[in-house]
C-alpha cells in the first residue's frame, strides 16, 4: 500500500477539523468519522467500520484511536500517524494556550455558559455514536439483546467492559450473533 499525498492531506484535514469539532471529548467525533469514512469517502464498508470500532474500543489506550486505525486502513502506517496527529494536533495546541489563560476566565459567565451548553450536545453525540455502531453491527434478536444488556450493565455497574467483550465475542464466535 503506497499512500499518495492527496489521500494523506485529506486524512490530515479531516481529522484536524474533527479535533476542534469534537466537543467534550474524542467520542463525540465518531458519528462524523462514520459519515466521512463510510458514506462520503467510501474508505470503509459498514462492516469494516463496525469491526474497527470494536477493535479500538476493546484495545487499551485512548478512545480516539479509532482515527488511527482508520488512517491505517486508508493509507498504511503513515496514514495511521497522520490521522493521529490530525486528531490530536489542533486541540493540543489550543489546550496549551487556553491552559495559560484559564485562570482569567475560569469563572466568567460566558465560559460557564459554553460549558453548560456543551454537556447535552456531547452526551447526545456519544449516544449517536452508539446508535450508529448498533445499526452497523446488530442484525438479529440476539445482537440487539447483547447491546441492550451491555447498555444496562454499563449503566448500572462498574464491571470491566473487557468481560462483556469476551462474552459477546464468544456468542459471535458460536454463530449466535
Amino acid at each position, binding site marked *: 500500500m503506497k499512500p499518495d499525498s492527496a489521500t494523506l492531506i485529506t486524512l490530515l484535514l479531516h481529522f484536524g477539523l474533527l479535533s476542534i*469539532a*469534537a*466537543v*467534550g*471529548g*474524542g467520542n463525540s*467525533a465518531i*458519528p462524523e468519522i462514520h459519515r466521512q469514512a463510510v458514506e462520503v469517502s467510501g474508505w470503509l464498508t459498514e462492516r469494516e467500520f463496525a*469491526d*474497527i470500532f*470494536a477493535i479500538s*474500543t*476493546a484495545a*487499551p*489506550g*485512548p478512545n*480516539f484511536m479509532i482515527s*488511527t*486505525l482508520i488512517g491505517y486502513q486508508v493509507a498504511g502506517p503513515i496514514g495511521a500517524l497522520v490521522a493521529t496527529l490530525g*486528531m490530536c494536533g489542533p*486541540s*493540543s495546541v*489550543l489546550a496549551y494556550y487556553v*491552559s495559560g*489563560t*484559564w*485562570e482569567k476566565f475560569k469563572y466568567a*459567565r*460566558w465560559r460557564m*455558559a459554553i460549558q*453548560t*451548553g*456543551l*454537556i*447535552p*450536545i456531547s*452526551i*447526545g453525540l456519544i449516544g*449517536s455514536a*452508539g446508535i450508529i*455502531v*448498533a445499526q*452497523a453491527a446488530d442484525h438479529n434478536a440476539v*445482537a*440487539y439483546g*447483547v*447491546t441492550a444488556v*451491555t*447498555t444496562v*450493565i*454499563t449503566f448500572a455497574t462498574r464491571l*470491566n467492559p473487557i468481560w*462483556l467483550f469476551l462474552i*459477546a*465475542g464468544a*456468542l*459471535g*464466535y458460536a454463530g*449466535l*450473533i
Partner: protein
Amino acid sequence: MSEPPATVPAPVLRPGLWNLFRSFAIVSIFGFGGTLAWARRMTVDERKWMTPAEFNEVFALCQFLPGPNVVNFAVVFGARVRGVPGSLVAMAGLCGPSLVLMVILGALYGRYGELPELQRFLGGVTTAAAGLTIGTMCRMAVPLFQNKQWVSITLMAAVVIAVGLLKLPLWWALGIFLPIGIIIGWRKPR
C-alpha cells in the same frame, strides 16, 4: 511558546521528561475502558504529582476544550511541569504505544479480517461495544435528570435524533445546537 502556562501552583514533585514519558506510556498501555481514570490514578494517587483538587481543576479545563480529553490532560499537565517539552513528551508517551498497537492490530485485521471465525467474534464484540457506548451516554445523562434540566435533556434528545438517526453532518448539528446550548447555559449557568 517559551513559558509554561501556570494555572495552578506547580506540583510539589516535578517529574523529569523520561519519567513523564514512561508514566503516560503506562497509562496508554493499561488504560482499558477510559484512559483518563488511569491518568488520574497515576498523577494523583500513585505519584502524588497533583492534589485531587488540582486534578479536578485541570479536568474541568480538559472537558471544556474540544478534542480527546486525555490528550488535553497530557498536554496541560506536561506543560505545567516541564513546559513545551513536557507537553510533547507526555503526549508522545500517551499516544506512541497505542499508535504502535493500532498499526499491529490494523495489519492483523488486514491479513486475517476476512476469516469467518474472526468475523463472527468481532461481530459479537461490536454489539457489546455499541452497548458500552450507549450505556456511557446514559450514565453521563444522569446528572441532567437529577437536576431536572428538562431543556438540556430535550437538546440532548434532539442531538441523538438529528445525528444518530437522521445522520445530520456534525457541522450542521453544531451550527444548530451549539447556539441553543449556549443560550441555555447563559440563562442558567451551573
